[in-house]
């Protein structure tokens, strides 16, 4: 499962309206519900918070990758949010997070799950790419940047 297959404008929010970690997770999950990709909001939310309780998925340089295994989705599911002003996600470097990649995967799809997360890790290593993403005006532009359709 390539990242390109998961990224569609309907699962991208630009800009995020939330101001806290829990609210960001809820806002991104709601995107998935609205896009028809998630039915059981509460179970997915609990799974994500349980993972966050073990250690924040707010990384360095504004990147956050909240993720969880859950059988509330039939296949790997991704939502993305951009918050140019930054949101406190208890990141490792203490800085506000600006780019959010929320991923849910069924427990029996660990292989594709790991590959998709790995692709996000590679992608976000490019500071210039992250800067471009941060400047995206809307979901369509962000999706286009992610899929490199040129």
């Amino acid at each position: 499962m390539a990242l390109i297959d998961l990224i569609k404008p309907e699962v991208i929010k630009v800009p995020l309206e939330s101001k806290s970690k829990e609210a960001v997770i809820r806002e991104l999950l709601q995107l998935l519900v609205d896009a028809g990709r998630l039915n059981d909001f509460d179970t997915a939310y609990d799974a994500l918070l349980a993972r966050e309780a073990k250690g924040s998925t707010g990384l360095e340089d504004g990147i956050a990758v909240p993720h969880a295994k859950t059988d509330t989705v039939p296949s790997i599911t991704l939502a993305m949010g951009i918050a140019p002003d930054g949101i406190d996600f208890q990141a490792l470097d203490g800085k506000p997070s600006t780019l959010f990649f929320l991923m849910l995967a069924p427990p029996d799809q660990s292989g594709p799950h790991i590959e998709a997360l790995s692709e996000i890790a590679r992608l976000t290593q490019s500071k210039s790419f992250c800067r471009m993403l941060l400047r995206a005006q809307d979901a369509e532009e962000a999706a286009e940047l992610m899929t490199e359709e040129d």
Partner: protein
Amino acid sequence: MEGPIRNIVVYVDGTEEAITAAQYAVCLAKATGAQLHALYVINTRALNDLVKARIFLDTEEQEYHRDLETDADRYLNHVDKMARRKGVEARLDKRSGTVHQEIKKKIEEIDADLLIIGELSHIRSRRDEFYHETERAMRLVQCSVLMVKDEERVWDLYDAIPE
């Protein structure tokens, strides 16, 4: 005279497409008499990358590694059953490492004539050309590569073989 295909490797990665590829590989092995090898690679490279990027905690890495071991056994056993059902012997191989490199090694070790893989996604980015493991394996191996498409037709082919 020996046929053009003696050793087939089918790469199984836990996707639906890979299962279809395995079905086709069974059909081809049955028709040609070639030896079928099914390979699953536990992507420890990706696991390590996620720990380095701090997306995974150490405990999470161990948990996912166990999951991948279980997946590998499950999918390889599934291929084994599919093959046995049609009177074909499948040699199963579970490895760990960087996927495309392990596929290449396997091909070289058994001097395989053909690598069979599942269908790749229709829309591809330039990024995938560099990073998609199956895509990389396809470009890297020395033998011919067959990408299996048309799931329904493959099902029909497989079903048509007497058990």
